[in-house]
């Protein structure tokens, strides 16, 4: 199957030059996006076949390092991520068939789009460190080109700059990690790395490098700074891919290295991963709550969900380190299921935000409102995404978080003391982030889609095109399907957990009423289907009975609002006023939030003013000092650029002498 997948990747790569040839043609985007749609669908099917067929296959191409070649492999883990990547890719291509028509300069997007999807596929297919890193960098650069597609906006340029820096930093960390793993023999094949047994110190260094390298791409706190800048800057279908899919490719990198290549884990690895995951989850959602740019809010939410995924993975590492294979399988399945779920609903939400952006030209929620009347179908799909990402039953986000909670409940059996204290705390952080996520999406949906329109742009909004709607509805249906029939998806993940932790969750699909039972029925079980049927039935019965037996009369009138309705839509709650109670509870500690009210004295005609001051402490304490230092250093070093030839020659000579001295002293 690896060969088939490579054919698909080649087809995607071939689309890039074709799109350049088609430049200027009005049908260029239709051709490219439909071709990408077909190829990603085929690739997805290839992934599905290899995942269900339990097959592993390899392919070698004569590229790359001359003594190595480029190795590719399709095993269970790769197949799962191939499905995630190409499902997201197919949905984005379908969405773009409509959305991409509005692109001002398609030539800035079209060549990079298929190349970007190809890059992500190559990362998960790679079977040696060299191709992995090259594909990783290819993925980063092609997505960078998409981030700066609309380069006339200064904000996007800054986003692109920060992204480029962080991406290079991440790749550097991964490069060092692989370099250390390959060791002196320099064998970059994954098989060789698997077979080698590095020392404990070496694995510790590699683990931290991997956490930093893959984590900076995934967006763990505090390495997330680029993500909320770069993801919203790209065109919306690309934002969906970056947030929904590329972060998952980063998770793949982490899983591949820690669960597969690094050998058996030490107990403290999981503590690191769990702590990072918990902090990332809560910080991500708190940042999201403070945003009023719809796409940036969604980007920060990706940070939160990455945290949830890392919690699942951290638990799996903890159980694996202590030889509790069944529990490890549960935690790993929970994490990977969340990978799948998040890729669906995050793409869906970004599509919705894209449709709104297209129709109103606004990303700022405070300029929207009332869109449910003008874009009812988009609103419905977006609502499904909101409920799913808030981890509410009967949708899919709840199932994966529920599984994570079940895994946490198994952890008192862990022998180590550190974990005994850490795991309940992480559980509390997970619960907190889930509750805050619900608050955040009440805000996101309520302020942009409900209420009355706040600007003319929102009044004039029109429903988006049918292709975009189709993409959103397919993803909404998947959200519900994975929520009410999670057993199918859990069973599909069995080969992956078998390969990584040598155990899998009990077989689910054969159980009565399609219930899911992670460990034993007396312990815990959940049946999304029944819950869904019950809620739908009792709601419909209630509606029917009331309309039939009591009253179905309805009269429209002005809003009541305690007798003092104000016709101005500015009196509605806005995104910032909605977040105010939460800002007061959490913001003073996390953001040093301050509210400064300026009230003019009685009789004065000056307007009263309320200013809210928020500080991004991570940016201010971690990033700004580095930026200031680099600025200072470059300014000092700048004199080196304008030396006379004599001085240059002196410098060269001095360096030569220095190097010779070092060589002489070197043992």
């Amino acid at each position: 199957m690896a060969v088939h997948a490579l054919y698909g990747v080649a087809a995607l790569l071939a689309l890039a030059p074709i799109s350049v040839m088609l430049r200027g043609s009005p049908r260029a985007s239709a051709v490219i996006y439909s071709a990408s749609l077909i190829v990603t669908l085929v690739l997805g099917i290839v992934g599905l076949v290899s995942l269900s067929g339990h097959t592993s296959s390899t392919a070698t191409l004569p590229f790359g390092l001359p003594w190595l070649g480029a190795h590719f492999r399709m095993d269970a883990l790769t197949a799962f991520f191939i499905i995630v990547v190409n499902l997201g890719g197919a949905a984005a291509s379908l969405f773009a068939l409509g959305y991409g028509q509005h692109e001002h300069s398609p030539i800035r997007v079209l060549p990079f789009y298929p190349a970007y999807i190809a890059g992500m596929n190559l990362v998960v297919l790679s079977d040696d460190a060299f191709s992995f890193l090259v594909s990783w960098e290819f993925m980063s650069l092609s997505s960078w080109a998409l981030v700066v597609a609309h380069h006339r906006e200064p904000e996007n340029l800054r986003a692109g700059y920060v992204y480029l820096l962080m991406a290079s930093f991440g790749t550097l960390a991964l490069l060092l990690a692989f370099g250390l793993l390959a060791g002196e023999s320099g064998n970059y094949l994954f098989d060789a790395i698997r077979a080698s047994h590095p020392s404990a110190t070496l694995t510790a260094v590699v683990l931290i490098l991997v956490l930093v390298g893959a984590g900076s791409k995934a967006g763990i706190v505090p390495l997330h700074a680029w993500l909320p800048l770069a993801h919203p800057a790209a065109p919306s279908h690309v934002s969906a891919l970056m947030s929904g899919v590329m972060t998952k490719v980063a998770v793949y990198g982490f899983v591949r290295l820690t669960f597969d290549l690094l050998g058996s884990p030490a107990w403290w690895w999981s503590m690191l991963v769990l702590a990072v995951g918990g902090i990332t989850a809560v910080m991500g959602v708190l940042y999201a709550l403070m945003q009023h740019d719809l796409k940036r809010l969604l980007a920060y939410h990706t940070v939160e969900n990455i945290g949830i995924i890392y919690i699942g993975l951290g638990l799996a590492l903890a159980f694996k380190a202590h030889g509790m294979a069944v529990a490890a399988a549960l935690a790993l399945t929970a994490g990977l299921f969340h990978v799948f779920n998040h890729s669906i609903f995050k793409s869906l939400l970004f599509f919705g935000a894209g449709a709104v952006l297209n129709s109103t030209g606004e990303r700022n929620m405070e300029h929207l409102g009332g869109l449910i009347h003008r874009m009812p179908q988009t609103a419905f799909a977006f609502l499904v995404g909101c409920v799913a990402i808030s981890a509410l039953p009967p949708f899919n986000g709840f199932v994966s978080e529920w599984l994570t909670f079940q895994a946490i409940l198994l952890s008192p059996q862990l022998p180590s003391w550190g974990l005994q204290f850490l795991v309940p705390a992480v559980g509390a952080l997970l619960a907190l982030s889930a509750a805050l996520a619900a608050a955040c999406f009440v805000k996101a949906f309520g302020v942009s889609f409900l209420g009355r329109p706040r600007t003319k742009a929102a009044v004039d909004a029109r429903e988006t095109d049918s292709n975009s709607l189709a993409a959103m509805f397919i993803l909404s249906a998947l959200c519900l399907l994975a929520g009410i029939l999670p057993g199918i998806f859990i069973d599909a993940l069995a080969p992956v957990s078998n390969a990584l932790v040598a155990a899998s969750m009990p077989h689910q699909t054969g159980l009565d009423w399609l219930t899911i039972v992670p460990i034993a029925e007396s312990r815990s079980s959940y049946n999304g289907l029944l819950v869904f049927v019950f809620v739908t039935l009792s709601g419909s019965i209630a509606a029917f009975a009331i309309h039939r037996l009591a009253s179905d009369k309805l009269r429209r009138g002005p809003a009541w609002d305690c007798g003092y309705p104000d016709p101005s839509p500015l009196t509605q709650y806005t995104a910032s006023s909605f977040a105010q109670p939460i800002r007061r509870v959490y913001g003073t500690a996390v953001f040093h939030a301050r509210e400064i009210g300026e009230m003019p004295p009685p009789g004065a005609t000056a307007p009263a003013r309320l200013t809210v001051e928020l500080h991004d402490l991570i940016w201010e304490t971690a990033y700004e000092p580095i930026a200031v230092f680099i600025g200072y250093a470059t300014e000092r070093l700048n004199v080196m650029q304008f030396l006379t030839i004599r001085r240059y020659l002196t410098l060269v000579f001095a360096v030569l002498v220095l190097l010779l001295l070092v060589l002489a002293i070197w043992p």
Partner: protein
Amino acid sequence: MALIRDFAFQGAQMLLVLLLSPLLTGFVRKVKARLLRRQGPPLLQPYRDLIRLLRKEVVLADSASWLFRVVPYIVFAGTWVAASLVPTFRSGLLFSWSADLIALIALLGSARFFLALSGLDVGTSFGGIGSSREVMIASLAEPAMLMIVFTLALTAGSTQLSTMAAYMTSGEAGLRVSLGLALLALIMVAIAENGRIPIDNPATHLELTMVHEAMALEYSGRHLALIDLSSELRLLLYVSVIACLFLPWGIAPPTGDAAAAVVGIASYVAKLAIGGIVLAVFETSIAKMRVFRVPAFLGAALMLGLLGTLLLFVSRSL
């Protein structure tokens, strides 16, 4: 035959919670009034209110969307399903395994999510104030509740309410510090989730501190009836959860016959009465808090829950 019996019991449970919930609210109001030496409304007043509201026409704001009209049904259905999955008079209900305690909490969370959305739908300032405060309270109450669930689940080795109730009845649990902490935290969360004093005042409609009533301000007629019935159901649900976990005596076992079920119902009603009296006494003896003191109250609940869980984690390893 057994299946038919199980179906009958499940149906009885659904009807029972639906019928008893307005009574509980009426009872609490009555006891509160008596404590203040007032006559108070009759016990059956909540039923009359509901029937009157159901018969009235709905006055819908011009700016209301379809979501506003659907939300009452979603909220009602979610709360009703959650309430009918709690073992009240008989454990081992037919469908009790379809949602464990975590899923139950999440189901209530779904109901709240939609109610908060409906507060924003008409685009009035009162709806917004209610929704924003509700989600703030929920953001603390939900993690606190989950910590309590953790404590209980680790003690009983299950998140299934039926199993937990059976474990608590068996007396294996004994007296544990963690359980005491969990009970205290659970009561605090229940007070917050039901919008009772000192968090919110269910008796006022025009006060700037209100939360739940502000969200539902634009509702009228049958919609309002459903919203009110859902809050009554939620109160009943929390009292039932506390009763089922901490006062599990009298609950009929899954194999029990009709006689056991009658005993179960009688003891359940008695437990509800106790819960109602305790709530009424508590509410009359305490003043309402400022809204920004609520985080401290719920933060304490969260810490109690976390402490309970931590104690269990640590005591396991000793």
